[in-house]
């Protein structure tokens, strides 16, 4: 009984820390996105709140918190309230299986804990895919329940888009799963230890570079980001599915979007770029004799990879215009899907011919 209570307390502490880090990252991202976009377009971004505009996320959060919560006339009140929660929870719940750091254990009060992994379930990646798909319900229901044509159109577009690209994400991941022989994100990351050419993006027998490209493009499409931001195309649909939302409910959708961005970046880092592994074998700190602090280096490598992807999201947004809807669908079904399928075929043959890979 005492052990169970201890384990629960430790898990809750882990969850609290992870949620705190995610929320902090979302705050940083909202500022970083505006800053990076501004710098890339010869502007300054927010400059008024705090030194160099650094307190802008706090100002935004306070503003959204104190705004009036409007439910439009004719809206389905229950679904209208449910939709933001349905969008936010799946975006945050996926982090339960993400390995943020090495698989090491620490011993506290005679019980072993893994400090950097909330739960290492053996179907980790499947769990993430399942929950991110539920996030689509939030968007569709939010669009439908608002009783507004823009919201409905945004929700419909989003439904079609997420379903189309969810498929490509799933198929792009299969190549990695074939090579790793596991669905657990921890096992997959451990299999990429050593030099950086063991990362699955470069790994022999068959580099997953095509799967990586398909995954990144589909991930951008799945998170409704530019150039695939048709569900919230502001020049066509006001704001898409959250047109009618205000105050904290709007903030929920907003956090969900950024949470999804972080989640797909974490998954991409763990599956293709070696997760917490450094590009060289072991860690530099362990070589220098600080083996007890080696985890810090691993966590920093993981964060660096995730932030690289997050920067890529901003970079793409600053560069590319929005696709037309038929282009989006054609690209998803006629280009991405065959590439992903072909990748599975070739990877399967390669994995069969060279069992054990390298």
């Amino acid at each position, binding site marked *: 009984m005492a052990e169970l209570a201890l384990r629960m307390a430790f898990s809750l502490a882990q969850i609290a820390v992870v949620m705190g880090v995610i929320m902090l990252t979302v705050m940083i991202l909202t500022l970083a996105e505006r800053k*990076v976009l501004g*710098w*890339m377009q*010869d*502007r*300054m971004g927010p400059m008024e709140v705090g030194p160099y505009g650094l307190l802008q996320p706090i100002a935004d959060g306070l503003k959204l918190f104190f705004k009036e919560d409007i439910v439009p006339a004719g809206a389905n009140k229950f679904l209208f309230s449910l939709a933001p929660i349905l969008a936010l929870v799946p975006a945050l719940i996926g982090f339960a299986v993400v390995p943020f750091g090495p698989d090491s254990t620490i011993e506290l009060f005679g019980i072993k804990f893994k400090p950097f992994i909330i739960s290492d379930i053996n179907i980790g990646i499947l769990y993430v895919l399942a929950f991110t798909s539920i996030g689509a319900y939030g968007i569709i229901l939010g669009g439908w329940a608002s009783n507004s044509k823009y919201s409905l159109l945004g929700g419909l577009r989003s439904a079609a888009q997420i379903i189309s690209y969810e498929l490509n994400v799933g198929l792009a991941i299969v190549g990695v799963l074939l090579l790793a022989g596991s669905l657990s994100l921890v096992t997959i990351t451990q299999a990429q230890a050593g030099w950086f050419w063991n990362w699955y993006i470069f790994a022999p027998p068959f580099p997953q570079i095509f799967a990586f490209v398909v995954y990144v493009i589909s991930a951008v499409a799945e998170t409704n980001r530019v150039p695939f931001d048709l569900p919230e195309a502001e020049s066509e649909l006001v704001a898409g599915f959250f047109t009618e939302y205000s105050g904290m409910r709007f903030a929920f959708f907003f956090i969900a979007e950024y949470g999804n961005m972080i989640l797909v970046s974490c998954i991409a880092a763990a599956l293709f770029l070696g997760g917490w592994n450094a590009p060289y074998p072991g860690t530099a700190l362990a070589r220098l004799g600080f083996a007890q602090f080696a985890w810090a280096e691993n966590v920093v490598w993981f964060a660096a990879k995730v932030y690289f992807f997050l920067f890529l999201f901003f*970079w793409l947004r600053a*560069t*590319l215009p929005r696709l037309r809807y038929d282009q989006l669908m054609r690209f998803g079904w006629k280009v991405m899907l065959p590439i992903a399928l072909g990748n599975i075929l070739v990877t399967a043959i390669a994995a069969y011919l060279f069992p054990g890979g390298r």
Partner: protein
Amino acid sequence: MLTKFKTWLKTITFYEILVGMAATMKHLLRYKPITLQYPHEKRTLPDSYRGMLALLRYDDGTEKCVGCDLCEAACPSRVIRVVSSEVPGEPTKRFAKEYYMDMTRCLFCGMCVDACPVDALGMTREYEWAVYDKRHLHLNKQQLLAIGDRSYPVREKRLEFQHPNVAFFNVAFKNLPQKGS
């Protein structure tokens, strides 16, 4: 055939997208914002800037305006309304008893300033005239004179040979002292 292959190669390697991303990255690395942080830093106005209109005075504090209505006639958007009247006891001399400008309509063309025969109107360099109530832009003579007082601290001399009862027109005399800068 070769060009077709090249196009195909460019398509599958996302060549155009990479060029675009290199362009945005170049702007990020050579960060030179063109933003002017407006309330904190302001633009240098050109010399011929046409800002808020003002009524001017002579150095002895008397109004220059002789109430001739020419500005009202020149104004293309009917901003100005002048109520002219005689100076009491001096039938040859007139002045503007009331002088109104509806600045909501003004398009700052400067034609009234050109039309004024005694240089009683001037354009200042003020432009921050946002108000909460539109009626605050309907200015009377006192307000216009106040704007002139704060924008033209150096006033023109009333000429000595000018009879106080005669409106003096500056059009024929090019060698007269000009408005102080």
